Protein backbone atom coordinates (compact mmCIF):
# COMPACT_ATOMS: atom_id res chain seq x y z
CA UNK A 1 0.00 0.00 0.00
CA UNK A 2 2.84 2.37 0.86
CA UNK A 3 4.29 1.77 -2.59
CA UNK A 4 1.04 2.72 -4.27
CA UNK A 5 0.59 5.78 -2.08
CA UNK A 6 4.11 6.94 -2.86
CA UNK A 7 3.63 6.40 -6.59
CA UNK A 8 0.31 8.23 -6.41
CA UNK A 9 1.88 11.25 -4.72
CA UNK A 10 4.74 11.39 -7.22
CA UNK A 11 2.36 11.23 -10.16
CA UNK A 12 0.06 13.82 -8.60
CA UNK A 13 3.02 16.20 -8.34
CA UNK A 14 3.93 15.64 -12.00
CA UNK A 15 0.32 16.15 -13.02
CA UNK A 16 0.14 19.45 -11.14
CA UNK A 17 3.21 20.77 -12.97
CA UNK A 18 1.86 19.77 -16.38
CA UNK A 19 -1.53 21.31 -15.55
CA UNK A 20 0.15 24.57 -14.54
CA UNK A 21 2.00 24.58 -17.86
CA UNK A 22 -1.22 23.81 -19.74
CA UNK A 23 -2.84 26.85 -18.11
CA UNK A 24 0.13 29.00 -19.11
CA UNK A 25 0.15 27.73 -22.70
CA UNK A 26 -3.58 28.46 -23.04
CA UNK A 27 -3.04 31.94 -21.61
CA UNK A 28 -0.24 32.62 -24.09
CA UNK A 29 -2.10 31.28 -27.15
CA UNK A 30 -4.89 33.80 -26.78
CA UNK A 31 -2.41 36.62 -26.16
CA UNK A 32 -0.32 36.02 -29.30
CA UNK A 33 -3.15 37.43 -31.39
CA UNK A 34 -1.62 40.11 -33.58
CA UNK A 35 -3.23 43.40 -32.70
CA UNK A 36 -6.03 43.84 -30.22
CA UNK A 37 -8.15 40.73 -29.52
CA UNK A 38 -11.06 42.98 -28.55
CA UNK A 39 -10.91 44.76 -31.91
CA UNK A 40 -10.65 41.44 -33.77
CA UNK A 41 -13.63 40.05 -31.90
CA UNK A 42 -15.88 43.04 -32.53
CA UNK A 43 -15.11 43.28 -36.25
CA UNK A 44 -14.40 46.24 -38.48
CA UNK A 45 -17.49 48.34 -37.69
CA UNK A 46 -16.85 48.57 -33.93
CA UNK A 47 -16.34 52.00 -32.41
CA UNK A 48 -13.25 52.73 -30.28
CA UNK A 49 -15.60 53.05 -27.29
CA UNK A 50 -16.98 49.53 -27.87
CA UNK A 51 -13.47 48.15 -28.13
CA UNK A 52 -12.38 49.91 -24.94
CA UNK A 53 -15.43 48.56 -23.14
CA UNK A 54 -14.76 44.99 -24.25
CA UNK A 55 -11.09 45.33 -23.37
CA UNK A 56 -12.09 46.31 -19.88
CA UNK A 57 -14.67 43.53 -19.64
CA UNK A 58 -12.10 40.93 -20.69
CA UNK A 59 -9.49 42.43 -18.41
CA UNK A 60 -7.20 43.07 -21.38
CA UNK A 61 -6.27 46.56 -20.21
CA UNK A 62 -4.49 45.23 -17.11
CA UNK A 63 -0.74 44.51 -17.15
CA UNK A 64 0.05 41.04 -18.54
CA UNK A 65 1.19 39.59 -15.24
CA UNK A 66 -1.95 40.78 -13.50
CA UNK A 67 -4.06 39.30 -16.31
CA UNK A 68 -2.29 35.99 -15.78
CA UNK A 69 -2.89 36.15 -12.05
CA UNK A 70 -6.57 36.86 -12.57
CA UNK A 71 -6.77 34.06 -15.13
CA UNK A 72 -5.27 31.52 -12.72
CA UNK A 73 -7.39 32.78 -9.82
CA UNK A 74 -10.51 32.44 -11.97
CA UNK A 75 -9.65 28.86 -12.89
CA UNK A 76 -9.06 27.93 -9.26
CA UNK A 77 -12.51 29.34 -8.47
CA UNK A 78 -14.06 27.48 -11.38
CA UNK A 79 -14.55 30.65 -13.43
CA UNK A 80 -13.45 30.38 -17.06
CA UNK A 81 -14.72 33.81 -18.06
CA UNK A 82 -17.70 35.02 -20.01
CA UNK A 83 -18.58 34.09 -23.59
CA UNK A 84 -18.91 37.30 -25.57
CA UNK A 85 -21.38 36.00 -28.13
CA UNK A 86 -23.42 33.55 -26.08
CA UNK A 87 -23.59 36.05 -23.25
CA UNK A 88 -23.19 33.35 -20.61
CA UNK A 89 -20.32 31.99 -18.50
CA UNK A 90 -17.97 29.72 -20.45
CA UNK A 91 -18.47 26.97 -17.86
CA UNK A 92 -22.24 27.07 -18.46
CA UNK A 93 -21.73 26.93 -22.23
CA UNK A 94 -19.37 23.97 -21.88
CA UNK A 95 -21.59 22.11 -19.43
CA UNK A 96 -24.62 22.53 -21.69
CA UNK A 97 -22.71 20.84 -24.52
CA UNK A 98 -20.86 18.19 -22.54
CA UNK A 99 -23.40 15.38 -22.90
CA UNK A 100 -23.17 14.63 -26.65
CA UNK A 101 -19.38 14.93 -26.59
CA UNK A 102 -19.08 12.67 -23.55
CA UNK A 103 -21.26 9.92 -24.99
CA UNK A 104 -19.75 10.27 -28.46
CA UNK A 105 -16.26 9.80 -27.03
CA UNK A 106 -17.39 6.96 -24.77
CA UNK A 107 -19.16 5.03 -27.54
CA UNK A 108 -16.32 5.61 -29.98
CA UNK A 109 -13.74 4.23 -27.58
CA UNK A 110 -15.98 1.24 -26.81
CA UNK A 111 -16.44 0.55 -30.52
CA UNK A 112 -12.72 0.99 -31.19
CA UNK A 113 -11.73 -1.37 -28.36
CA UNK A 114 -14.44 -3.89 -29.24
CA UNK A 115 -13.00 -4.10 -32.76
CA UNK A 116 -9.33 -3.74 -31.92
CA UNK A 117 -8.84 -6.22 -29.07
CA UNK A 118 -10.26 -9.39 -30.67
CA UNK A 119 -8.98 -8.53 -34.15
CA UNK A 120 -5.51 -7.59 -32.90
CA UNK A 121 -5.20 -10.71 -30.73
CA UNK A 122 -6.46 -13.01 -33.48
CA UNK A 123 -4.19 -11.37 -36.01
CA UNK A 124 -1.15 -11.96 -33.79
CA UNK A 125 -2.12 -15.55 -33.06
CA UNK A 126 -2.69 -16.24 -36.74
CA UNK A 127 0.41 -14.34 -37.76
CA UNK A 128 1.30 -14.55 -41.45
CA UNK A 129 -2.06 -15.98 -42.54
CA UNK A 130 -4.39 -14.34 -45.06
CA UNK A 131 -6.47 -13.05 -42.13
CA UNK A 132 -3.42 -11.37 -40.64
CA UNK A 133 -2.47 -9.81 -43.97
CA UNK A 134 -5.97 -8.42 -44.44
CA UNK A 135 -5.95 -6.99 -40.91
CA UNK A 136 -2.56 -5.32 -41.40
CA UNK A 137 -3.68 -3.81 -44.71
CA UNK A 138 -7.04 -2.67 -43.39
CA UNK A 139 -5.55 -0.98 -40.32
CA UNK A 140 -3.16 0.90 -42.58
CA UNK A 141 -6.02 2.09 -44.79
CA UNK A 142 -8.30 2.93 -41.85
CA UNK A 143 -5.55 5.07 -40.30
CA UNK A 144 -5.47 7.10 -43.52
CA UNK A 145 -9.20 7.82 -43.69
CA UNK A 146 -10.33 11.19 -42.29
CA UNK A 147 -13.11 10.39 -39.81
CA UNK A 148 -15.26 13.22 -41.16
CA UNK A 149 -15.14 11.67 -44.62
CA UNK A 150 -16.16 8.27 -43.27
CA UNK A 151 -18.94 10.10 -41.41
CA UNK A 152 -20.20 11.68 -44.63
CA UNK A 153 -20.22 8.28 -46.35
CA UNK A 154 -22.09 6.68 -43.42
CA UNK A 155 -24.69 9.48 -43.55
CA UNK A 156 -25.13 8.86 -47.26
CA UNK A 157 -25.53 5.10 -46.92
CA UNK A 158 -27.29 4.55 -43.59
CA UNK A 159 -29.16 7.80 -42.99
CA UNK A 160 -30.12 9.08 -46.44
CA UNK A 161 -30.07 5.70 -48.19
CA UNK A 162 -31.48 3.23 -45.64
CA UNK A 163 -33.03 5.69 -43.24
CA UNK A 164 -31.91 3.63 -40.23
CA UNK A 165 -30.34 6.52 -38.38
CA UNK A 166 -30.85 10.29 -38.26
CA UNK A 167 -28.45 12.21 -40.50
CA UNK A 168 -27.84 14.99 -38.05
CA UNK A 169 -28.84 16.69 -34.80
CA UNK A 170 -29.18 15.38 -31.28
CA UNK A 171 -32.53 16.51 -29.96
CA UNK A 172 -33.16 18.73 -26.96
CA UNK A 173 -33.52 17.85 -23.28
CA UNK A 174 -37.16 16.88 -23.93
CA UNK A 175 -36.09 14.17 -26.40
CA UNK A 176 -36.00 10.73 -24.72
CA UNK A 177 -32.49 9.71 -23.71
CA UNK A 178 -32.39 6.62 -25.92
CA UNK A 179 -33.47 8.64 -28.92
CA UNK A 180 -30.66 11.10 -28.25
CA UNK A 181 -28.22 8.20 -28.16
CA UNK A 182 -29.67 6.93 -31.45
CA UNK A 183 -28.30 10.11 -33.02
CA UNK A 184 -24.83 9.12 -31.86
CA UNK A 185 -24.63 5.72 -33.56
CA UNK A 186 -23.26 6.88 -36.92
CA UNK A 187 -20.79 9.45 -35.56
CA UNK A 188 -19.53 6.98 -32.96
CA UNK A 189 -19.03 4.32 -35.64
CA UNK A 190 -17.15 6.80 -37.86
CA UNK A 191 -14.82 7.82 -35.06
CA UNK A 192 -14.54 4.36 -33.52
CA UNK A 193 -13.64 2.55 -36.73
CA UNK A 194 -10.94 5.05 -37.68
CA UNK A 195 -9.44 4.97 -34.19
CA UNK A 196 -9.62 1.18 -33.93
CA UNK A 197 -6.79 1.04 -36.50
CA UNK A 198 -4.11 2.28 -34.14
CA UNK A 199 -5.29 0.16 -31.19
CA UNK A 200 -5.44 -2.94 -33.41
CA UNK A 201 -1.87 -2.38 -34.58
CA UNK A 202 -0.60 -2.00 -31.03
CA UNK A 203 -2.58 -4.97 -29.75
CA UNK A 204 -1.19 -7.15 -32.52
CA UNK A 205 2.37 -5.92 -31.94
CA UNK A 206 2.16 -6.29 -28.15
CA UNK A 207 0.75 -9.81 -28.48
CA UNK A 208 3.46 -10.80 -30.97
CA UNK A 209 6.01 -9.52 -28.47
CA UNK A 210 4.81 -11.77 -25.66
CA UNK A 211 3.67 -14.83 -27.62
CA UNK A 212 7.29 -15.82 -28.19
CA UNK A 213 8.25 -15.45 -24.52
CA UNK A 214 9.38 -18.29 -22.29
CA UNK A 215 6.44 -18.21 -19.91
CA UNK A 216 4.04 -18.64 -22.81
CA UNK A 217 5.99 -21.68 -23.95
CA UNK A 218 6.05 -22.99 -20.38
CA UNK A 219 2.30 -22.53 -20.08
CA UNK A 220 1.82 -24.50 -23.29
CA UNK A 221 4.22 -27.19 -22.10
CA UNK A 222 2.23 -27.50 -18.88
CA UNK A 223 -0.67 -28.44 -21.09
CA UNK A 224 -2.71 -25.29 -20.61
CA UNK A 225 -5.43 -24.87 -23.25
CA UNK A 226 -4.69 -22.47 -26.10
CA UNK A 227 -7.46 -20.08 -25.03
CA UNK A 228 -6.05 -19.94 -21.51
CA UNK A 229 -2.50 -19.41 -22.79
CA UNK A 230 -3.54 -16.51 -25.01
CA UNK A 231 -5.99 -14.77 -22.70
CA UNK A 232 -4.43 -15.41 -19.31
CA UNK A 233 -0.70 -15.68 -19.90
CA UNK A 234 -0.07 -13.65 -23.03
CA UNK A 235 -2.75 -10.94 -23.00
CA UNK A 236 -2.21 -10.03 -19.38
CA UNK A 237 1.42 -9.27 -20.12
CA UNK A 238 0.61 -7.41 -23.32
CA UNK A 239 -1.85 -5.12 -21.53
CA UNK A 240 0.51 -2.24 -20.68
CA UNK A 241 1.20 -0.99 -24.21
CA UNK A 242 -2.44 -1.68 -25.08
CA UNK A 243 -3.69 0.44 -22.17
CA UNK A 244 -1.23 3.19 -23.11
CA UNK A 245 -2.49 3.38 -26.66
CA UNK A 246 -6.13 3.32 -25.55
CA UNK A 247 -5.35 6.27 -23.28
CA UNK A 248 -3.68 8.12 -26.14
CA UNK A 249 -6.60 7.32 -28.44
CA UNK A 250 -8.97 9.19 -26.15
CA UNK A 251 -7.11 12.41 -26.96
CA UNK A 252 -7.31 11.57 -30.65
CA UNK A 253 -11.02 10.86 -30.27
CA UNK A 254 -11.60 14.27 -28.74
CA UNK A 255 -9.76 15.85 -31.67
CA UNK A 256 -11.82 13.72 -34.04
CA UNK A 257 -15.00 14.67 -32.18
CA UNK A 258 -14.42 18.35 -33.02
CA UNK A 259 -14.76 17.59 -36.72
CA UNK A 260 -17.27 14.75 -36.44
CA UNK A 261 -19.68 16.84 -34.38
CA UNK A 262 -19.68 19.42 -37.14
CA UNK A 263 -20.42 16.78 -39.79
CA UNK A 264 -23.33 15.34 -37.81
CA UNK A 265 -24.59 18.66 -36.45
CA UNK A 266 -24.19 17.49 -32.85
CA UNK A 267 -24.43 20.34 -30.33
CA UNK A 268 -21.28 19.26 -28.48
CA UNK A 269 -18.09 20.88 -27.24
CA UNK A 270 -16.41 20.44 -30.64
CA UNK A 271 -19.19 22.31 -32.39
CA UNK A 272 -18.97 25.02 -29.74
CA UNK A 273 -15.24 25.43 -30.35
CA UNK A 274 -15.62 25.65 -34.13
CA UNK A 275 -18.32 28.28 -33.90
CA UNK A 276 -16.28 30.12 -31.27
CA UNK A 277 -13.32 30.18 -33.65
CA UNK A 278 -15.45 31.51 -36.51
CA UNK A 279 -16.78 34.26 -34.19
CA UNK A 280 -13.41 34.88 -32.51
CA UNK A 281 -15.00 34.18 -29.12
CA UNK A 282 -11.65 33.85 -27.32
CA UNK A 283 -12.92 33.10 -23.79
CA UNK A 284 -14.79 30.05 -25.12
CA UNK A 285 -11.79 28.80 -27.12
CA UNK A 286 -9.61 29.33 -24.07
CA UNK A 287 -11.99 27.53 -21.72
CA UNK A 288 -12.60 24.58 -24.04
CA UNK A 289 -8.87 24.08 -24.63
CA UNK A 290 -8.23 24.14 -20.94
CA UNK A 291 -10.96 21.68 -20.02
CA UNK A 292 -10.06 19.22 -22.78
CA UNK A 293 -6.35 19.31 -21.93
CA UNK A 294 -7.09 18.87 -18.24
CA UNK A 295 -9.24 15.83 -19.02
CA UNK A 296 -6.41 14.41 -21.11
CA UNK A 297 -3.90 14.92 -18.29
CA UNK A 298 -6.34 13.22 -15.91
CA UNK A 299 -6.79 10.25 -18.26
CA UNK A 300 -3.01 9.90 -18.51
CA UNK A 301 -2.85 9.87 -14.74
CA UNK A 302 -5.48 7.14 -14.55
CA UNK A 303 -3.61 5.14 -17.21
CA UNK A 304 -0.42 5.41 -15.15
CA UNK A 305 -2.27 4.19 -12.09
CA UNK A 306 -3.71 1.27 -14.08
CA UNK A 307 -0.16 0.18 -14.86
CA UNK A 308 0.40 -0.51 -11.17
CA UNK A 309 -2.72 -2.62 -11.01
CA UNK A 310 -1.92 -4.54 -14.18
CA UNK A 311 1.77 -5.01 -13.53
CA UNK A 312 2.93 -4.95 -9.90
CA UNK A 313 6.54 -4.72 -11.10
CA UNK A 314 6.02 -1.20 -12.44
CA UNK A 315 7.78 1.28 -10.18
CA UNK A 316 6.93 4.86 -10.75
Amino acid at each position, binding site marked *: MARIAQALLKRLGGMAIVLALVVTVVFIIVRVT*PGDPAAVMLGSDATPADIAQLREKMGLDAPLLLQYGQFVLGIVQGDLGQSIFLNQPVTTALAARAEPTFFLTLFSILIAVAIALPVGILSAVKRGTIFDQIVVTLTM*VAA*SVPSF*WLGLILIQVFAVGQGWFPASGYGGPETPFLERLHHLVLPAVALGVVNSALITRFTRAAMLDVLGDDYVRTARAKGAGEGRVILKHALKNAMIPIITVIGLSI*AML*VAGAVVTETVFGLPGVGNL*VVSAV*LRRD*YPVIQGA*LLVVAAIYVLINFIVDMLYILVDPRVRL
Partner: protein
Amino acid sequence: MTTMASVSMPFASGLRRLFGNRAMLFGAIILAIVILAALLAPWVAPYAPNKLSIINKLKPPSMTNFFGTDEFGRDIFSRAIFAGRISLLVSLGVVVISTVLGVILGVAAGFFRSLDAPISRLLDAMMSFPDILLAIALVAALGPSLTTVILALGITYAPRLARIVRGSTLVLRELPYIEAAVAMGLPTWQILARHVLLNLASPILVQATFVFASAMLAEASLSFLGVGVSTDMPTWGTMLASGREYMNNAPWLMVFPGLAIVFSVLSLQLLGDGLRDLVDPRLAKES
Protein backbone atom coordinates in the same frame (compact mmCIF):
# COMPACT_ATOMS: atom_id res chain seq x y z
CA MET B 1 6.63 6.11 -24.31
CA THR B 2 9.42 3.55 -24.34
CA THR B 3 6.99 0.67 -24.28
CA MET B 4 5.03 2.07 -27.18
CA ALA B 5 8.01 2.62 -29.41
CA SER B 6 9.47 -0.77 -28.67
CA VAL B 7 6.29 -2.54 -29.63
CA SER B 8 5.94 -0.62 -32.86
CA MET B 9 9.04 -2.33 -34.19
CA PRO B 10 7.59 -5.84 -34.41
CA PHE B 11 4.72 -4.36 -36.36
CA ALA B 12 7.08 -2.82 -38.86
CA SER B 13 9.11 -5.97 -39.24
CA GLY B 14 5.90 -7.98 -39.43
CA LEU B 15 4.79 -5.82 -42.29
CA ARG B 16 8.08 -6.38 -44.05
CA ARG B 17 7.65 -10.10 -43.69
CA LEU B 18 4.18 -9.82 -45.12
CA PHE B 19 4.80 -7.56 -48.05
CA GLY B 20 8.54 -7.47 -48.50
CA ASN B 21 9.34 -3.94 -49.46
CA ARG B 22 6.47 -3.85 -51.91
CA ALA B 23 4.32 -1.86 -49.49
CA MET B 24 6.95 0.83 -49.22
CA LEU B 25 7.43 0.81 -52.97
CA PHE B 26 3.69 1.17 -53.48
CA GLY B 27 3.68 4.12 -51.07
CA ALA B 28 6.62 5.76 -52.80
CA ILE B 29 5.01 5.41 -56.23
CA ILE B 30 1.69 6.92 -55.11
CA LEU B 31 3.46 9.76 -53.36
CA ALA B 32 5.56 10.41 -56.46
CA ILE B 33 2.40 10.57 -58.58
CA VAL B 34 0.74 12.99 -56.13
CA ILE B 35 3.82 15.22 -56.01
CA LEU B 36 4.33 15.20 -59.79
CA ALA B 37 0.67 15.93 -60.44
CA ALA B 38 0.81 18.85 -58.00
CA LEU B 39 4.03 20.26 -59.44
CA LEU B 40 2.86 19.92 -63.04
CA ALA B 41 -0.75 20.86 -62.25
CA PRO B 42 -1.14 23.52 -64.98
CA TRP B 43 -0.03 20.96 -67.59
CA VAL B 44 -1.66 17.85 -66.14
CA ALA B 45 -5.07 19.32 -65.31
CA PRO B 46 -7.34 19.42 -68.37
CA TYR B 47 -9.14 22.57 -67.17
CA ALA B 48 -8.37 25.61 -65.03
CA PRO B 49 -9.42 24.79 -61.43
CA ASN B 50 -11.83 27.72 -61.13
CA LYS B 51 -13.21 27.69 -64.69
CA LEU B 52 -17.00 28.00 -64.42
CA SER B 53 -19.33 26.22 -66.81
CA ILE B 54 -22.81 26.48 -65.36
CA ILE B 55 -24.46 24.49 -68.15
CA ASN B 56 -22.24 21.55 -67.21
CA LYS B 57 -22.99 21.66 -63.49
CA LEU B 58 -23.14 18.45 -61.40
CA LYS B 59 -22.27 16.18 -64.32
CA PRO B 60 -21.24 12.63 -63.34
CA PRO B 61 -17.77 11.34 -64.22
CA SER B 62 -17.26 10.97 -67.97
CA MET B 63 -14.52 11.01 -70.57
CA THR B 64 -14.57 14.82 -70.69
CA ASN B 65 -14.66 15.24 -66.88
CA PHE B 66 -12.95 12.21 -65.33
CA PHE B 67 -14.22 12.94 -61.80
CA GLY B 68 -17.39 14.78 -62.86
CA THR B 69 -18.21 18.45 -62.26
CA ASP B 70 -19.33 20.44 -59.22
CA GLU B 71 -22.26 22.79 -58.61
CA PHE B 72 -20.62 25.49 -60.76
CA GLY B 73 -19.63 23.10 -63.54
CA ARG B 74 -15.99 23.17 -62.49
CA ASP B 75 -13.94 20.08 -63.30
CA ILE B 76 -13.40 18.02 -60.12
CA PHE B 77 -10.36 16.23 -61.54
CA SER B 78 -8.56 19.53 -62.26
CA ARG B 79 -9.58 20.96 -58.90
CA ALA B 80 -8.37 17.85 -57.05
CA ILE B 81 -4.97 18.15 -58.76
CA PHE B 82 -4.60 21.83 -57.89
CA ALA B 83 -5.81 21.14 -54.34
CA GLY B 84 -2.90 18.71 -53.99
CA ARG B 85 -0.57 21.71 -54.31
CA ILE B 86 -2.00 23.42 -51.22
CA SER B 87 -2.09 20.19 -49.27
CA LEU B 88 1.53 19.31 -50.08
CA LEU B 89 2.73 22.86 -49.53
CA VAL B 90 1.08 23.08 -46.11
CA SER B 91 2.24 19.61 -45.04
CA LEU B 92 5.80 20.25 -46.20
CA GLY B 93 5.88 23.57 -44.36
CA VAL B 94 4.57 21.85 -41.23
CA VAL B 95 7.27 19.18 -41.48
CA VAL B 96 10.00 21.83 -41.79
CA ILE B 97 8.76 23.90 -38.85
CA SER B 98 8.04 20.97 -36.55
CA THR B 99 11.40 19.40 -37.41
CA VAL B 100 13.38 22.58 -36.72
CA LEU B 101 11.52 23.22 -33.44
CA GLY B 102 11.53 19.54 -32.50
CA VAL B 103 15.26 19.13 -33.10
CA ILE B 104 16.16 22.26 -31.12
CA LEU B 105 13.95 21.26 -28.17
CA GLY B 106 14.80 17.56 -28.35
CA VAL B 107 18.57 17.99 -28.58
CA ALA B 108 18.53 20.62 -25.83
CA ALA B 109 16.53 18.32 -23.53
CA GLY B 110 18.51 15.22 -24.38
CA PHE B 111 22.00 16.70 -24.30
CA PHE B 112 21.87 19.23 -21.47
CA ARG B 113 20.73 17.55 -18.27
CA SER B 114 19.60 20.79 -16.64
CA LEU B 115 17.20 21.55 -19.50
CA ASP B 116 15.66 18.10 -19.64
CA ALA B 117 13.03 18.45 -16.93
CA PRO B 118 11.64 21.87 -17.95
CA ILE B 119 11.54 21.04 -21.66
CA SER B 120 10.07 17.60 -21.11
CA ARG B 121 7.28 18.97 -18.93
CA LEU B 122 6.54 21.64 -21.54
CA LEU B 123 6.31 18.91 -24.19
CA ASP B 124 3.94 16.96 -21.92
CA ALA B 125 1.77 20.04 -21.59
CA MET B 126 1.78 20.70 -25.36
CA MET B 127 0.87 17.10 -26.05
CA SER B 128 -2.10 17.34 -23.69
CA PHE B 129 -3.95 19.30 -26.36
CA PRO B 130 -5.59 17.22 -29.08
CA ASP B 131 -3.84 18.19 -32.33
CA ILE B 132 -6.79 19.63 -34.23
CA LEU B 133 -8.00 21.57 -31.21
CA LEU B 134 -4.61 23.18 -30.57
CA ALA B 135 -4.22 24.00 -34.27
CA ILE B 136 -7.72 25.53 -34.40
CA ALA B 137 -6.99 27.67 -31.35
CA LEU B 138 -3.69 28.85 -32.81
CA VAL B 139 -5.27 29.64 -36.17
CA ALA B 140 -8.00 31.54 -34.33
CA ALA B 141 -5.39 33.54 -32.47
CA LEU B 142 -3.11 34.21 -35.43
CA GLY B 143 -5.83 34.70 -38.04
CA PRO B 144 -6.52 32.23 -40.87
CA SER B 145 -3.98 32.23 -43.71
CA LEU B 146 -1.63 29.82 -45.41
CA THR B 147 1.27 30.90 -43.18
CA THR B 148 -0.64 30.69 -39.91
CA VAL B 149 -2.04 27.24 -40.71
CA ILE B 150 1.50 26.02 -41.41
CA LEU B 151 2.79 27.70 -38.27
CA ALA B 152 -0.06 26.40 -36.09
CA LEU B 153 0.28 22.80 -37.27
CA GLY B 154 4.08 23.07 -37.10
CA ILE B 155 3.90 24.09 -33.44
CA THR B 156 1.30 21.40 -32.80
CA TYR B 157 3.46 18.57 -34.16
CA ALA B 158 6.85 19.81 -32.91
CA PRO B 159 6.56 17.94 -29.56
CA ARG B 160 6.18 14.62 -31.40
CA LEU B 161 9.55 15.14 -33.08
CA ALA B 162 11.09 16.61 -29.95
CA ARG B 163 10.27 13.44 -27.98
CA ILE B 164 11.89 11.17 -30.54
CA VAL B 165 14.95 13.42 -30.85
CA ARG B 166 15.30 13.67 -27.06
CA GLY B 167 15.17 9.89 -26.68
CA SER B 168 17.77 9.33 -29.37
CA THR B 169 20.02 12.09 -28.03
CA LEU B 170 19.92 10.58 -24.53
CA VAL B 171 21.30 7.34 -25.99
CA LEU B 172 23.88 9.08 -28.18
CA ARG B 173 25.17 11.19 -25.29
CA GLU B 174 26.35 8.09 -23.43
CA LEU B 175 28.18 6.58 -26.41
CA PRO B 176 31.99 6.39 -26.12
CA TYR B 177 32.77 8.55 -29.14
CA ILE B 178 30.67 11.43 -27.81
CA GLU B 179 32.32 11.08 -24.41
CA ALA B 180 35.67 11.07 -26.20
CA ALA B 181 34.75 14.23 -28.12
CA VAL B 182 33.77 15.93 -24.86
CA ALA B 183 37.00 14.78 -23.21
CA MET B 184 39.01 16.10 -26.16
CA GLY B 185 37.57 19.50 -25.44
CA LEU B 186 35.65 19.86 -28.71
CA PRO B 187 33.27 22.83 -28.55
CA THR B 188 29.72 21.77 -27.70
CA TRP B 189 28.22 23.16 -30.89
CA GLN B 190 30.69 21.11 -32.91
CA ILE B 191 29.82 17.93 -31.03
CA LEU B 192 26.15 18.62 -31.56
CA ALA B 193 26.47 19.46 -35.25
CA ARG B 194 28.96 16.82 -36.25
CA HIS B 195 28.25 13.89 -33.98
CA VAL B 196 24.76 14.22 -32.59
CA LEU B 197 22.70 15.73 -35.41
CA LEU B 198 24.15 13.49 -38.09
CA ASN B 199 23.24 10.41 -36.11
CA LEU B 200 19.74 11.71 -35.52
CA ALA B 201 18.99 11.92 -39.24
CA SER B 202 17.32 8.51 -39.54
CA PRO B 203 14.88 8.69 -36.63
CA ILE B 204 14.03 12.26 -37.64
CA LEU B 205 13.35 11.20 -41.22
CA VAL B 206 11.01 8.43 -40.08
CA GLN B 207 9.08 10.62 -37.67
CA ALA B 208 8.93 13.49 -40.18
CA THR B 209 7.21 11.17 -42.65
CA PHE B 210 4.51 10.39 -40.08
CA VAL B 211 4.14 14.08 -39.23
CA PHE B 212 3.74 14.72 -42.96
CA ALA B 213 0.82 12.26 -43.00
CA SER B 214 -0.79 13.74 -39.86
CA ALA B 215 -0.38 17.28 -41.18
CA MET B 216 -2.14 16.32 -44.39
CA LEU B 217 -5.11 14.90 -42.47
CA ALA B 218 -5.17 17.89 -40.13
CA GLU B 219 -5.04 20.42 -42.98
CA ALA B 220 -7.97 18.64 -44.64
CA SER B 221 -9.92 18.77 -41.36
CA LEU B 222 -9.21 22.48 -40.84
CA SER B 223 -10.22 23.31 -44.41
CA PHE B 224 -13.35 21.21 -44.06
CA LEU B 225 -14.31 23.11 -40.89
CA GLY B 226 -13.72 26.41 -42.68
CA VAL B 227 -10.93 27.47 -40.32
CA GLY B 228 -8.06 26.54 -42.58
CA VAL B 229 -6.17 28.04 -45.47
CA SER B 230 -8.22 30.78 -47.08
CA THR B 231 -7.28 31.07 -50.73
CA ASP B 232 -9.06 31.15 -54.05
CA MET B 233 -7.53 27.78 -54.76
CA PRO B 234 -9.47 24.64 -53.82
CA THR B 235 -8.23 22.30 -51.10
CA TRP B 236 -9.46 18.74 -50.61
CA GLY B 237 -11.09 19.80 -47.35
CA THR B 238 -12.96 22.78 -48.84
CA MET B 239 -14.03 20.65 -51.82
CA LEU B 240 -15.60 18.16 -49.39
CA ALA B 241 -17.20 20.94 -47.35
CA SER B 242 -18.86 22.56 -50.37
CA GLY B 243 -19.68 19.23 -52.02
CA ARG B 244 -21.58 18.09 -48.92
CA GLU B 245 -24.73 19.93 -49.87
CA TYR B 246 -25.00 18.08 -53.15
CA MET B 247 -23.93 14.64 -52.02
CA ASN B 248 -27.40 13.12 -52.40
CA ASN B 249 -27.50 13.81 -56.13
CA ALA B 250 -23.80 14.07 -56.91
CA PRO B 251 -21.88 11.64 -54.68
CA TRP B 252 -18.75 12.07 -56.83
CA LEU B 253 -18.29 15.46 -55.18
CA MET B 254 -17.54 13.55 -51.99
CA VAL B 255 -15.82 10.48 -53.33
CA PHE B 256 -12.85 11.86 -55.26
CA PRO B 257 -11.46 14.54 -52.93
CA GLY B 258 -11.83 12.01 -50.10
CA LEU B 259 -9.96 9.35 -52.03
CA ALA B 260 -7.23 11.89 -52.82
CA ILE B 261 -6.74 12.42 -49.08
CA VAL B 262 -6.82 8.69 -48.29
CA PHE B 263 -4.30 7.73 -50.97
CA SER B 264 -1.90 10.57 -50.15
CA VAL B 265 -1.95 9.84 -46.42
CA LEU B 266 -1.72 6.09 -47.01
CA SER B 267 1.33 6.54 -49.25
CA LEU B 268 3.09 8.46 -46.49
CA GLN B 269 2.18 5.88 -43.84
CA LEU B 270 3.53 3.06 -46.01
CA LEU B 271 6.68 5.02 -46.70
CA GLY B 272 7.16 5.83 -43.01
CA ASP B 273 6.73 2.21 -41.98
CA GLY B 274 9.18 1.10 -44.64
CA LEU B 275 11.73 3.69 -43.58
CA ARG B 276 11.36 2.69 -39.94
CA ASP B 277 12.24 -0.82 -41.01
CA LEU B 278 15.39 0.37 -42.69
CA VAL B 279 16.81 2.63 -39.98
CA ASP B 280 18.76 1.42 -37.01
CA PRO B 281 16.22 -0.25 -34.71
CA ARG B 282 18.34 0.50 -31.65
CA LEU B 283 17.73 4.22 -32.08
CA ALA B 284 14.08 3.83 -32.97
CA LYS B 285 13.56 1.74 -29.85
CA GLU B 286 14.75 4.49 -27.57
CA SER B 287 12.07 6.91 -28.64
